[in-house]
């Protein structure tokens, strides 16, 4: 396989590690998502299990498949 065969937009294939400028400015869509999330976060504690520690500890499943 060669780079050319991969046939895609300008990429960051050479960079193994993420760098800060990879994160673009939040889009309008992102802003809307954030506003909706704020509303949810205002009321989420009503919905969350009372004792997170105990809930997580007690959630034990048998392997399946």
């Amino acid at each position: 396989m060669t780079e050319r065969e991969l046939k895609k937009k300008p990429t960051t294939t050479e960079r193994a590690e993420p760098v800060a400028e990879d994160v673009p400015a939040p889009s309008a869509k992102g802003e809307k998502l954030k506003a909706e999330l704020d509303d949810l976060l205002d009321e989420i504690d009503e919905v969350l299990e009372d004792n997170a520690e105990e809930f997580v500890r007690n959630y034990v499943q048998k392997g399946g498949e």
Partner: protein
Amino acid sequence: MAIEKVCGIETEYGIQVVGGDPNPIAGSSVLINAYAHEVVHRRTAWDFDDESPGNDARGEAQPGAMPPAIETHLVNSVLTNGARYYVDHAHPEFSTPECLDALECVRYDRAGEEILRRSVEAADRLTHDGRRFSVYKNNSDGKGNSYGCHENYLVARSVPFDRIVTSVTPHFVTRQIYAGAGKVGAETAAFDGQRVDYQISQRAEFFEERVGLETTLKRPIVNTRDEPHADPSRYRRLHVIVGDSNLCEVATFLKVGTTALVLSMIEDDATGPRPLDFADPVRAMHAVSQDLTLRRALRMADGSTATALDVQWHLYELARKYAMDHGTASVGGADVGTLILDRWGGVLEALEADPMSLAGQLDWVAKLHLLEGYRARHDLAWQDRRLAAMDLQYHDLRPARSLFSRLGTERLVSDEEVARAVETPPRGTRAWFRGACLARWPDAVVTANWDSLVFDLGQDPLRRVPMMDPLRGTADHVEELLQKSSTPADLLSRLSQ
């Protein structure tokens, strides 16, 4: 031409029983019995005659391989929508009926969730010993125990299995970038002790082999179970075990749609002269799950490197060309085929530009978006148990507890379509015959399985109707016949004419 990629999803749900006997097998049985007796008032049993999960697609039993055990004593039922609803190991499991395309698969996968929700409500109502039930559409308990969400695709027997293994592996390693359900932390030795705060896939870290028969230990990326539930001389059923359970409809649609397209390409030998090949697919799969930036370079067998996005772009471009050259009849026709390609290209572009913009479409992003918001508001470290609890609760199906349902992610199917899919079978596969017979003559159909129905006509012997072709027994084939038949005996005599 590739044959129709008849497909289906089997989901094992996590189950919690509090306030009484916590046994998950007993609890799962209660759920299914409650649904069968309280909601649909009957139950047709599953017939195990044709089950052979120990058969290996590579032709012979592999040394040391452990075929899964079939547990015939556990509760099992068949529904009028053609689905199977049963207890598998210690989980309630819902297998969708055979669907003709990815969008239909989404409808029936959602119907499965609805059936589980109704089961929980019925079980809470019916049990008077204080037990309360909850089910989770996820794949692990965070403590190293995993349960599956398997997909199945119809593939022509003439395709060499080796070619499937080679060509589909890069897709299975990388499709998690849109099909992953997201998970807080890690629970296996896959990451060599490195700290993992959040990863893309629930399941990826449980995979240890490239190819094999097992599903519960040493899990392989390509599963070789050769149990076609159809005419074995013409068909193979590719049993896919790498997937996460998805709640986002876009994620389920893409998971199934892209895989059906890739398998069609493999069948028509259109994956290019040199298919991509990872140097170490298992490690690559773990690395992809761990890398939220999607930028990590992965080593390929030829010494080059590629990111998961590179590999997905490559497969996408091949698929686009394939669709132009061969059409999309095998994945549901022009509308569904176009939708798969549009969505596939769209999410890859968005993943490249700003993954968080997909919080309304993909599970791993939706969950991360929620957790990051909560973390920022309360200034929490990733190790805070409240985040692990929210991870589990994202998948809770109960309306009062579900976090997913509060996120308002994009829908591809309507509530009305889902409600219909709870009751009625897909029209374009043999599931139609199974479901329609069960709905019409519930007392005469004594058992059913994927490839046959057994009728009791009130006289000996019982009559078995084989359904060895998943593409026959459709509404087009038999709806009129069924309408004309006044009794099951009448139907059987018309069928044998």
